[in-house]
């Protein structure tokens, strides 16, 4: 297990290193400098600015500085938001994103598991078909389509919930639902397949043969075992939530990281794009690493296989 974790952490570092380098060089390839459009600046002023931000030095030196700063946790300063350090900006905006993410993940997995369990226990009945259809809808319909439609009918037409604001729990209901659709669908589909497989295994037959009731067998034996592999879909779910958060936060005007990232892309605020990119990459790879390790701890079969899951 220790060997497996070490191996994974090394990969994580390599991956992050590649992403950081790629972002740096890609940004250097972009034409122009940040001060090109400032016509008021004289050549001397521009040189001073270049010197201040270290842009006058050769690219290898800049690269080394950039890398050193990242390790220290310094992601540079924003051009757009009053020279605010990117790290501060991220810190001030992570709250809403995290809240939405956790709410969506929580609600999504619980409803998803319920749907999946119902579908598997009443296999090939209308409950199963209904739940499967819902799951296909949730998997297929893009979150921004869902969010916009929700906003139009519940916010604009029925005026039940605030259209786009961020104060208090009520304003987080619609974004959470829009984000939760994908986790619901993923969890429901996964749970159904997994539970059907478990219900067909020998120890379930044995438990039934021993005279346990259907409910007892399902809850004490089947569902517990089917839940374990669900951990593996938490990774794709996190990726989906991050993708979803960008558009959903934009639609509902939530001051989160996703909304700011989209805004920075539209205004070419490169330090923020780079910083957020790195932050997203770090978060995602870390989440996936933690999930894999957790899974290894919970399911002994992974450990026996020497940690090689492929």
């Amino acid at each position, binding site marked *: 297990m220790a060997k497996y974790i070490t191996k994974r952490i090394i990969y994580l570092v390599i991956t992050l290193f590649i992403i950081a380098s790629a972002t740096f060089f890609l940004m250097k390839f972009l034409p122009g400098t940040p001060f090109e459009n400032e016509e008021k600046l004289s050549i001397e002023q521009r040189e001073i600015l270049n010197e201040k931000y270290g842009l006058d030095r050769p690219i290898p030196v800049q690269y080394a500085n950039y890398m050193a700063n990242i390790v220290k946790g310094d992601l540079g300063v924003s051009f757009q938001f009053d020279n605010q350090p990117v790290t501060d900006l991220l810190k001030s905006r992570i709250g809403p994103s995290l809240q939405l993410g956790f709410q969506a993940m929580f609600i999504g997995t619980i409803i998803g598991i319920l749907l999946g369990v119902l579908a598997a226990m009443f296999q090939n009945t209308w409950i199963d078909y209904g739940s499967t259809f819902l799951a296909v809808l949730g998997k297929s319909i893009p979150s921004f389509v869902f969010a916009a439609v929700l906003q139009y009918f519940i916010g604009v037409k029925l005026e039940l919930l605030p259209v786009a604001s961020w104060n208090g729990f009520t304003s987080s209901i619609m974004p959470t639902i829009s984000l939760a659709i994908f986790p619901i669908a993923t969890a429901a589909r996964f749970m159904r397949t997994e539970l059907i497989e478990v219900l067909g295994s020998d120890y379930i037959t044995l438990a039934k043969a021993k005279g346990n009731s259907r409910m007892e067998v399902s809850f004490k034996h089947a569902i517990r075992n089917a839940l374990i592999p669900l951990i593996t879909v938490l990774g794709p779910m996190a990726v989906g939530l991050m993708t979803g958060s960008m558009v959903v936060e934009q639609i509902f005007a939530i001051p989160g990281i996703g909304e700011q990232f989209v805004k920075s*892309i*539209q205004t070419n605020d490169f330090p923020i794009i780079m910083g957020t990119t790195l932050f997203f990459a770090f978060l995602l790879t870390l989440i996936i690493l933690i999930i894999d390790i957790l899974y290894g701890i919970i399911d002994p079969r992974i450990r026996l296989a020497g940690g090689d899951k492929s």
Partner: protein
Amino acid sequence: MTKSTEEIQKHRFEPAPKDSFDNEKIAKPQLSFAKDAWLRVRKNKGAIISLVILLIIVIMAIIGPHLTSHDGYEQDVSRSNLPPRIPVLEDWGIFDGSQEIGGVETNKYKDMNIDEYYWFGTDSLGRDLFTRTWLGTRVSLYIALLAALIDMLIGVIYGLVSGFKGGRVDNVMQRILEIMSGIPNLIVVILMLLILNPGILSITIAMVITGWIGMARVVRGQVLKLKNQEYILASRTLGAKNGRLLFKHLLPNLSGVIIINTMFTIPSAIFFEAFLSFIGIGLQAPEASLGTLIEDGYKTFQFLPHLMIIPCIVISIILITCNLIGDGLRDAFDPKMRD
């Protein structure tokens, strides 16, 4: 007993053939792989209905823009923001070109004496939404197909080589894959699009960069499983070269997983294109894709919801049908599900 032998006359018997050649003959026509799969997909009603709907959409994407006399790019501000109006249906009181603005029902067509029919209405620049929707569908499908094909090509080759060669080559290739798959594809795509000018080709390339990894993994896994089977050994014993083993024996047996994987790549590529357009780094005007139409429509959708809802319906239908067909194919190709 004795009676029956008497009743059957001797000449009615036929001697058994000496050569047993015919013994091996299979009376029923042989089922090819594709036929076998089709027989099983056919039982899946959802997949078949989806296939028909998807085909209709594809046909509409091809001929749709030519069905009306309106051009998808021509701007005519005097015809801007018209609601949908469809012949026949307008007599029933729906899609008759009327809309509610601030609680008052108005009909722009009557007010402005417009005789023409805009089936899906027009956008703020007076462009016909019907034509643009199908032009956009065409572009979205084109990007998705292109991305899926390139993903397939790279993924299959990488997976085949990695799985078939094995040993050191496989080891190195797998490590590369592991590191690449750690990079979130969303981030790669966004970074690439900031550098390349957004266009059909650059969006496709950006999606392909990490898109082939899934396919490569699946193909490698299958090759590892298949290459130790007896028929490969038999063929090798008979002197088959690697090329023949790969293309004649392995590839046909991989076609199931390849098709399924490609079928799931298409909807995710369509989604990604729409997503990129929605956050503003997708295709640029005047080019239309379903994503850009949704994004345009979203800007005014509180007042003119049809501009957003129609492309949303089309993209949702495409994604749902693709997923259902993919599910159907997976069930059909999966030997575990055979009945």
